[in-house]
């Protein structure tokens, strides 16, 4: 470059050969920066490994060995039958308590999640018309866990009923029974649907944060302005930023997918080509969001804060990764449409668990492509404006 030569600043059009060379130069410069500062490589490759290990093992909705208190007010063979049915379930860890007050204290202190009470009239009422009540008191603070525990208690009760019926020579079965089928995840492993979601979150984090901070740094130091006054075109500057981080991000994606399949045993039923396509589109959207944040913020301080607040938290809460989007109020559901992670989570869950379903992939790919175009387009506009 010859910054001293004024003719360079006023001649924007260059031959395509030199444009390619300039772009190569920019990518090369960015790649050198990445290699010299190993923290970027660490973010792209080491971060996904650590996060997936931590979250893959840490995030689970499968409750097992739930601590429950059991209060039997007057023990008899009938009550010990039921107590045995509870104790044999792998879902519970039964703590026998002598009276209700102790049980309530234990629940308040958080030692047990629920109390099962067999009242003193249990054995007598078994033969009455109304039936004997089995009281289940469950700590409802964590509503989701409470519901799961309640389902387990019900299961134990039904098992006991069937055995009770067999022992007394008459079958006690409900008139209608439900044959439950959980498609795509018959073993009900929450890991199988959480890990594809986690990959989407980790990739949001990496893609957005990397570019947000790097470009904001250039603005802060003034090197962005310096670049803008050279004959390099805005598209080339943006591409020069995008390409190296795209490569880094896709590397991280490959590592995450490999870990999901080989470390966590999540099935992968879709096609690899479809995965690469949708991941590329998502990477572009995430990088575009990062570029836009940094262009608007211009300082690392603000860019970093905004990246945490608008990239990570919505990806965690509004992407459908843990919380069901269809159950959210209409206004919030509407808002989820501008979260790239939402489309990526849906596509990944299908690709991993169900297969290459074009109905799902097509709409999500289109959405991600539009978001990438919008983010990159706005970034381009704002970058040009900044020069005026």
């Amino acid at each position, binding site marked *: 470059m010859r910054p001293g030569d004024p003719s360079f600043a006023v001649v924007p059009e260059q031959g395509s050969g030199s444009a390619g060379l300039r772009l190569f130069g920019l990518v090369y410069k960015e790649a050198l920066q990445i290699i010299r500062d190993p923290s970027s490589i660490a973010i792209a490759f080491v971060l996904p490994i650590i*996060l997936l290990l931590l979250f893959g093992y*840490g995030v689970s909705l499968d409750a097992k060995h739930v601590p429950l208190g059991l209060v039997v007010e007057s023990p008899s063979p009938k009550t010990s039958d039921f107590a045995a049915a509870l104790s044999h379930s792998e879902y519970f860890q039964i703590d026998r308590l002598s009276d209700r007050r102790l049980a309530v204290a234990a629940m308040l202190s958080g030692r047990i999640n629920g109390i099962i009470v067999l009242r003193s009239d249990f054995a007598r009422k078994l033969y009455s018309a109304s039936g004997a009540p089995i009281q289940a*008191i469950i700590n409802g603070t964590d*509503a989701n866990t409470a519901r799961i525990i*309640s389902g387990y208690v019900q299961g134990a009760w039904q098992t*006991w009923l069937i055995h009770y019926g067999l022992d007394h020579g008459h079958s006690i079965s409900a008139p209608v029974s439900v*044959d439950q089928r959980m498609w795509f995840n018959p073993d009900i492993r929450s890991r199988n649907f959480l890990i594809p979601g986690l990959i989407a979150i980790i990739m949001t984090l990496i893609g957005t944060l990397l570019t947000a901070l790097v470009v904001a740094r250039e603005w802060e130091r003034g090197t962005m302005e310096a670049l803008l006054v050279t004959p390099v075109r805005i598209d080339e500057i943006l591409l020069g930023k995008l390409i190296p981080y795209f490569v880094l991000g896709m590397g991280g994606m490959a590592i995450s997918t490999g870990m999901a399949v080989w470390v966590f045993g999540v099935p992968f039923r879709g096609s690899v080509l479809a995965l690469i396509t949708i991941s590329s589109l998502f990477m572009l959207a995430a990088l575009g969001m990062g570029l836009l944040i940094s262009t608007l913020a211009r300082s690392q301080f*603000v860019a970093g804060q905004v990246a945490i607040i608008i990239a990570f938290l919505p990806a965690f809460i*509004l992407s459908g990764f843990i919380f069901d989007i269809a159950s959210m109020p209409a206004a919030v559901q509407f808002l989820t449409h501008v979260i790239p992670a939402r489309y990526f989570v849906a596509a990944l869950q299908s690709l991993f668990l169900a297969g290459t379903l074009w109905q*799902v992939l097509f709409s999500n790919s289109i959405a991600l492509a539009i978001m990438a175009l919008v983010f990159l387009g706005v970034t381009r506009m704002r970058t040009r404006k900044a020069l005026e």
Partner: protein
Amino acid sequence: MWRRIWALIIKEFFAIWNDKRSRAVIIVPPLIQLMVFGYAATFDVSHVATAIYNEDRGVAASKLVARFAGSPAFHVVYHLDAQRQIAQKIDSRAVSLVIHIGPTFTRDLLTGRPATIQAIVDGRESNTALIILGYVNQIVENFDQSWSLQTHQPLPPARLVTRYWFNPNLQSRWFIIPGIVALLSMVVTIVVTALTIAREREVGTFEQLLVTPFSPLEILIGKSLPALAIGVSEGTFIILAAVLWFHVPLRGSVGLLYAGLLLYILAVIGIGLMVSSLARTQQQAMLGAFLFVVPAVILSGFATPIANMPHFIQTITLANPMRYFLVVVRGLFLEDLPAKVVLAQLWPMAVIAVLTLSGASWLFRHRTS
């Protein structure tokens, strides 16, 4: 000494407050997030898109279908008439649940043979799927009861009476919103503190500060108090919104709640300042903050219970201040947690605060560029 610290505090406040954008970052996003997450973060499933494939023309089957159609949990969007449509609707995510009633359903019921319906759920989101299956079982159980009563069949010898304490209607919003107090006050505090020292290091003013007569302790206080004020105001704002806007009951002692909030924010400040003084650049500081916030949120019990985690992860969570504060804030909101139980959560936060704050002030001097 206090006049000097006061000057330092004023300066810190100005550093945050005078920058229009960083001021906006502290005020606007938490507001929006509280509203959005308050409504969005719920485990309650409603209006489940449902398809019904009913092959039976009998009365009992249409009665059962009417129960599904009448329940607010389900929204019947399709009536199917062929087996192959089931896969179509589930695969494309058009519905999350298909209820399949076979052709002999009413006949089986009337002749006392066990009648079965099939409930097919989309397992790509197992948690939602499990909740949906729970609702299906509930509806079928109610149907069974009224059927047994109508046809004078014997009832089971023992019945299960389930009560949910503290949150009788199992509204997960009551669980999530107190959690948001912990989440947002941590995010804002860490963001404010993690960059303070790194920014000054980058500009070079931190070295200047170190050659002034300020002792590390004074610098520590000067850096901590503004962040403490911001974090506690943030927490207070969300607590007020939880009570006044979302109508989450606040049953426990407000004094204990604030004791918890203060210790929690102090612990977070300590971590933020440590990250900030370890970092050479703002970028490293920001990444450090991120590397703390993300695992801290996910491994805190905010969304998934700590009890479900493997033991070694549970051990790691012991160093996470959010874990303790979540117990305090949720317990005091919903359960009127006894003081003894609250104290058991307070002292670990105090230990973390002391360790991280003293670590940070040691690093002020011993890590110079």
